[in-house]
């Protein structure tokens, strides 16, 4: 059938539907019919384009106005979808990789290099409102019984958009997903942060990349306020080891479950708000509160819980990128458990927290190349006190870690970055190091 004739038929059909007064269709039926017509229109336009091409018509021809059919910006069916790695099916691939070399300033024999992370992700769009996303990560290159690498699912969730009467559009997520806490937890590709390694506050205090299983809701208002809330799995304090240093490196990382046969007798809840109503400026904060004792029989702290709160702000005027973040956490009802850890190296801290300020400046740019020197000062302490332990039975409170990181990100392309930095630790110069890194994302 002649495509132009088909077009006219469709127009007539739509016209008939619109003018029929007694045609009582429900909204859902009309929407479905319009979608079908849109698809058919796209197909017909594709055929028309092919026909014109084969007839060698003049390229700049005014296409006949398509009044009746709903003219959406959906391109002709012959257009290849603009999604990386897609075969036109709704599947998209993405990923990132980062690797680094690190040399302690005072101990060259401990220099090391590692492929820190290789991450492959995939997203599939079921329909305009429903999609899934997953990320598979390999840390430190090799995983086996004798190797120290790790393979993990970083995210694995389904997302569904709903339209509400008063709250506007909201997205609901269910599965294993990253919590919207701080800056780095959700956005941690190597091209998106400064320095070879992630900052200490968002590694040791906020255990990036921190993911839990559960349900989350997100909405964005017209004024630029983004809110998040959800109910998710929480940490497992029964994993705490008072003899290992893991809890000193990062209290929450030592007891995270990451969706791996997680204890779920106690759950957690989070809330986050971010204001992005002024372009170039962001301010926000979040809170997480969860039970970590899981009412385990025989465990000394069955009612233990943890609360973590953070606030952050970021300003990007012109070439500058200035950001700051402060986070603080607290364990409650752990006194009885700590009593059993008397004299050991790592009891459960009652308070922990830290903050950083960072400034970066795009000093040079030419095409895809760009150079961003930066400096970051951070101060944190993974144990500011211990409950349930008398003086002398608890380890001495260590002074705050104070670290200055100065370096630069050099972008070969917005998605490929070379990094170099030097880190100076004010209270422990044995940790001073020089780092080089390479990262990319797609």
């Amino acid at each position, binding site marked *: 059938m002649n495509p132009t004739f088909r077009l006219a038929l469709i127009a007539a059909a739509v016209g008939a539907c619109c003018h029929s007064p007694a045609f009582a269709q429900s*909204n859902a039926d009309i*929407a479905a019919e319009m979608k079908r017509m849109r698809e058919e229109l796209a197909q017909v336009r594709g055929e028309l384009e092919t026909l014109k091409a084969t007839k060698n018509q003049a*390229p*700049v021809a*005014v*296409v006949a*106005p398509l009044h009746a059919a*709903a*003219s*959406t*910006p959906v*391109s*002709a069916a012959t257009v*290849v979808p*603009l*999604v*990386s790695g897609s075969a036109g099916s709704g599947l*998209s691939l*993405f990923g990132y990789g980062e690797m680094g070399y690190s040399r302690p300033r005072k101990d060259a024999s401990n220099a090391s290099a590692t492929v820190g992370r290789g991450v492959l992700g995939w*997203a599939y*769009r079921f329909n*305009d*409102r429903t*999609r899934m*996303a997953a990320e598979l990560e390999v840390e430190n290159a090799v995983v086996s019984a004798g190797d120290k690498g790790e393979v993990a699912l970083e995210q694995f969730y389904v997302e569904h*958009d*709903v*339209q*509400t009467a008063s*709250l506007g*559009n*909201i*997205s609901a997520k269910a599965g294993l997903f990253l919590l919207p806490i701080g*800056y780095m937890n*959700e*956005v941690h590709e190597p091209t*998106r942060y400064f320095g070879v390694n992630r900052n200490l506050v968002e590694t040791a205090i906020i255990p990036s990349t921190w993911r839990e299983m559960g*349900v989350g*809701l997100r909405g*964005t208002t*017209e004024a*630029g306020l*983004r809110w998040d*809330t959800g*109910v998710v799995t929480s940490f497992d304090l029964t994993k705490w080891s008072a003899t290992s240093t893991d809890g000193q490196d990062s209290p929450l990382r030592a007891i995270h479950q990451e969706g791996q046969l997680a204890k779920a007798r106690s759950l957690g*809840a989070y809330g986050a708000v*971010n204001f*992005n*109503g*002024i*372009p*170039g400026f*962001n301010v926000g904060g979040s809170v997480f*509160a969860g039970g970590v004792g899981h009412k385990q029989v025989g465990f000394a702290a069955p009612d233990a*819980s943890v609360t973590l709160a953070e606030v952050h702000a*970021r300003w*990007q*005027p012109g*070439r500058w990128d200035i950001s700051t973040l402060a986070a603080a956490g607290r364990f409650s009802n752990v006194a009885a458990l700590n009593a059993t850890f008397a004299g050991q190296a790592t009891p459960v801290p009652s308070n922990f927290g830290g903050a950083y300020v960072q400034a970066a400046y*795009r000093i040079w740019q030419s095409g895809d190349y760009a150079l961003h020197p930066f400096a970051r000062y951070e101060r944190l302490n993974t144990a500011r006190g211990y409950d349930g332990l008398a003086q002398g039975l608890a380890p001495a409170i260590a002074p705050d870690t104070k670290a200055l990181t100065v370096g630069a990100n050099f972008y070969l392309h917005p998605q490929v970055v070379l990094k170099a930095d030097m880190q100076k630790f004010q209270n422990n110069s044995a940790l001073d190091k020089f780092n080089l890194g390479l990262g990319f994302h797609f």
Partner: protein
Amino acid sequence: MISRRQSLRNIAQAGVGAVALWQSGAFAAVYMEIAQAQKLLQPEANSFEPLALALDAARLTALAASTQTQVPRGYAPQCWAAFSGSTAVGWVLSDRTVGKYELIDYAAGFTADGSMTGLEILAYRESHGAEIRTPAWRRQFAGRKGAGQLRFGDDIRNISGATLSCQHVTEGAQRLSALAQSLSAAAKGLR
């Protein structure tokens, strides 16, 4: 002092409330059709005529060079000439680009001399980066003429957490702006 159980209960109740407000049936991703966007972008116009853009390989290469952006595979923007009566007042161009994983449909209006009248987001399919729909971010585009006035980071500020969407839409707007400049030059040449 609210106990954790109470806060969990509150959150659960709020969640149930949110679901109760759910009004299904409307596609959440598509916010407006092109006809509505055309009216918003060219309020003085009362008719729009589709215009085919001759974008062959040579023109696409020139476009990439002049805007210093990479033209996506399958780039096929659509164009309408806006008329107020019989006077041409400008153009509306629409395009699609990737946000983080999903496609964003958007449209930009241009006056007869190629300045942008505004930017509208027609469809946004991700939860990340939905802030590009806020009027405050889109207002930055009004009045800008040419790709050189639409540099991401310098002229168009970013939204933290939505960087990829902001960057890709800004680069797309640069390309549409370059096309509008050539349409404007062609129209002047014909007069």
